[in-house]
């Protein structure tokens, strides 16, 4: 059976002599792995379509175990991001998040649309750390890990609490957080940004000016939240830090 779908390329790895095993996030089928034949050869017309973080229209032939990519048309390769190593690495980080968090063959059209708009935003406007954090939080929300920020996640009491519990996925009131060892203190600008990101959209977010300290704290919080619930480590973050150190 043949089918076609717009897809974002997450990564590819060598497979046999000149083939690659491509992991992609397709609009209709969700995350899947497919074989792209002969793409290491210079004459391959598929090669550009299956580069990491390219947006392509791909045509598949359903196989017994793995599907085969038969044809493709490049829709966008985010050329500006590709010319800048920092933007490239952050786009790859988005791909890593998708790779390590999505289940195979579970379509997520809203997340697909969001990923496209974030890649487009980075390509057109440059790197914006708040937009990246927005993607991390929205990914968690789409996966069912929406943090409860305006009431106690345990007893439902309303109020401005400061203690966030990773395990419970929300704020805890002083009564419920008694004896809690692994709480994260969240308040002020960081908490405000989190609430805005949880309910706002990309248009409102790009007009927000956040302080460097708040962005740093937000990044650390979301990193811990992602790692706790997805039980994965994200290697790109480390590479970005090493490269930043070496280039500075």
């Amino acid at each position, binding site marked *: 059976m043949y089918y076609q779908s717009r897809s974002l390329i997450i*990564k590819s*790895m060598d497979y*046999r*002599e000149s083939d690659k095993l491509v992991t992609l996030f397709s609009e209709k089928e969700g995350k899947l792995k497919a074989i792209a034949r002969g793409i290491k050869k*210079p*004459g391959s*017309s598929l*090669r*550009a*379509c299956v*580069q*990491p973080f*390219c947006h392509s229209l791909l045509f598949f032939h359903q196989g017994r175990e793995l599907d085969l990519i038969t044809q493709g048309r*490049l829709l966008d*390769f985010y*050329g500006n991001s*590709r*010319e800048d*190593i920092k933007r*490239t*690495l952050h786009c*790859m980080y988005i*791909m*890593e998040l998708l*790779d*390590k968090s999505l289940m195979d063959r579970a379509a997520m059209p809203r997340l697909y649309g969001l990923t496209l708009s974030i890649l487009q935003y980075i390509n057109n406007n440059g790197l914006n750390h708040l937009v990246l954090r927005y993607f991390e939080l929205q990914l968690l929300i789409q996966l069912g890990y929406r943090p409860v920020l305006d009431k106690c996640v345990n007893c439902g009491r309303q109020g401005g609490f400061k203690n966030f519990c990773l395990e419970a996925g929300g704020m805890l009131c002083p009564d419920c957080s008694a004896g809690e060892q692994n709480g994260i203190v969240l308040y002020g600008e960081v908490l405000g940004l989190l609430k805005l990101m949880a309910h706002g959209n990309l248009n409102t977010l790009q007009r927000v000016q956040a302080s460097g300290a708040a962005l740093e704290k937000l990044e650390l919080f979301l990193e811990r939240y992602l790692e706790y619930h997805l039980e994965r*480590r994200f*290697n*790109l973050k*480390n*590479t970005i830090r*090493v*490269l930043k150190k*070496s*280039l500075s």
Partner: protein
Amino acid sequence: MRLARPLENLIDNLLKLPTIGPKTAQRLALYILKMPAAEARQLAQAIIDAREKVFPCSRCGYLTDIDPCFICRDETRDTSILCVAEEASDIIAMERTGYRGRYYVLNKNFNLMDDNNLEDLNLDSFINQLASGEVKEVVLALNPDIEGEVISRYLAGLADGHGVKATRLAHGLPVGGDIEFADEITLRRALEGRKEI
């Protein structure tokens, strides 16, 4: 169908080689059985010798049976230029171009999403060569993919720290290729790297 155990064992071992599928493994195994005994022994001995006697050169990482390798010993080569490659097979390709400088082979598969770290790359000998003051230019001949780009930037940062110029191979159209069929990414790189004639 049940096969003789030694034959089955041979097929199983040939199957471990890249690009060899079950049918090819069976064909190769049957061919080996038909070979004269001396030739089969020679083949087995060649595999053992290559495995035991060939190792990466301590200076450049190229595969050799003497240390330093014949490239590092060659005094006619230009020692001021150091070409960094991912694999030993890339050196064979570079040698065909007539390049006469020295090499450094990383010999490590680096994947951004796996548990690889840039700091885990074995770069001691590379850094020593930069620090010696002999090298004036580092040519980064890594694959034109994202991993290659990241390693190139990292190595360029190290070279810069030692006051050594870092260059990388140009990206663009293959000789004899057709612009009409070139992909957008390659064409954009080719346009950016255009030269005055």
